[in-house]
């Protein structure tokens, strides 16, 4: 357990020192501010108020979980596995007293922690940015937003684990990112071509937080989606771990 936590701290340390981390976090904070300002101006000039303050975090969450966070997780996972193998820095960790299964686990956990930080930052920034918009604040609205951001972590964890698996196949992080995007894009488009297949795609649930809002979806439906995502995570995680453990350096 000691070596696992040590490497999680190391992975977070490395992530924090990457220049693109600061840019990404800045973008996560500034994007809602810019959008809110734009929407507020459009609403004022057109004399309409289509979006109220408490809805705004949910609109931003859609953008975050469909595009921004998956792309960032693909990049971070590729850096963490393919990038480190190519730069030969993976060896630095492999010769320390930590097993490969713990190294893999710590890297995946770090990706999930990064998703948590991003979602938390995104929620806070979009909540405060909602102040630009016509105000209709309510405690229940804020709670709904917070709950949506929390449950959004589940499909993002699946995306992170998937990215960790794909990163095992390549020495080049660019190739790993491209393949991640290609598979993710294909599975996102699949429901438009084969609607019945969408229930079997783990990426069809990146917006599953919307199921949690209101009272429209039964607990059993939510539970079955959760079990499906959990099953996908376990299968993909084990496939990634097997490849990571077998790799010769």
């Amino acid at each position, binding site marked *: 357990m000691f070596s696992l936590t*040590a490497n999680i701290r190391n992975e977070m340390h*490395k992530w924090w020192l990457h220049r693109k981390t600061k840019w990404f976090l800045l973008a996560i904070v500034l994007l809602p501010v810019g959008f809110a300002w734009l929407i507020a101006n459009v609403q004022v000039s057109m004399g309409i108020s289509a979006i109220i303050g408490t809805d705004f975090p949910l609109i931003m969450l859609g953008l975050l979980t469909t595009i921004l966070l998956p792309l960032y997780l693909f990049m971070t996972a590729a850096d963490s596995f393919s990038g480190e193998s190519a*730069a030969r820095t993976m060896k*630095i960790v492999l*010769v320390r*007293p930590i097993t490969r299964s713990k190294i893999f686990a710590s890297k995946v956990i770090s990706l999930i922690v990064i998703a948590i930080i991003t979602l938390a930052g995104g929620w806070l920034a979009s909540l405060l940015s909602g102040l630009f918009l016509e105000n209709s604040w309510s405690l229940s609205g804020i709670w709904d937003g917070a709950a949506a951001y929390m449950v959004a972590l589940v499909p993002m964890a699946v995306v992170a684990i998937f990215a960790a698996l794909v990163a095992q196949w390549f020495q080049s992080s660019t190739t790993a990112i491209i393949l991640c995007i290609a598979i993710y894009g294909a599975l996102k488009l699949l429901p438009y071509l084969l609607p019945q297949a969408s229930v079997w795609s783990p990426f069809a649930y990146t917006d599953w937080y919307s199921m949690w809002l209101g009272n429209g979806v039964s607990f059993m439906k939510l539970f079955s989606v959760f079990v499906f995502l959990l099953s996908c995570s376990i299968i993909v995680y084990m496939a990634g771990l097997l490849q990571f453990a077998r790799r*010769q350096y």
Partner: protein
Amino acid sequence: MTEQAAMTIAHISKTYKNGRGVRDVSLSVNKGEIFGLFGPNGSGKTTLLKIMTGLCTADEGAIHIFGHSISEQFEGAMAKVGCVIETADAYEYMSGYANLKLASRFYNDLPSGRIEEVLELVGLKAYGHEKVSGYSLGMKQRLALAAALISNPKLIILDEPTNGLDIEGIISVRNVILHLAEHQGMTFIISSHMMSEMELICTRIGILFGGQLIGQGEIGELLEGGQTMEQYYLSAIQPFKEGAAHV
């Protein structure tokens, strides 16, 4: 495995797709020794060191470090080992100090100030807070050595530690190794294809040729009768060269 042994290697074999690798290597390195693994390029030195440190797995055989199996008790086996394999790698976007900080987190009993201590030992204290991307090759080698020493290990495995260093760098690395072996009783396994370097540092050597360990012994014993290391090496590989010629 005897209590004297820091590492035992029993019948290790590994063959790569290109046919190279190591074949049925067995040896034992005693505590406090500076053991040199000598051989020409492509003789299997790095492969053997990679198997010792878990970077790759053997097709056959077993390795124990201080009684722990490298394949079954990896954390226990590597707890008292520091190593630099193949190249002196570091996170280039970090400072030397930050690199050592990452390495130090894997050990829970390190005294405070250990990072400064190893930086001073390898002569990098003045550059500890500079980014590694600005380091010279020699500085990177010394940083890698510092990372290997961070846990105050009992066994240090170094692959070609003086490769790419200038004469001052070679002397500096050699002195650090001799100092640690003499004053702290550390055991070293060092690979090199530079015979003169081996002769100056090692107490015992093993010769790898074509993936096989073809000879091993104390430096003093090998040089008995006034023969040089070069003469010993040439006489040791002769039967294997002739064997290959007959095939």
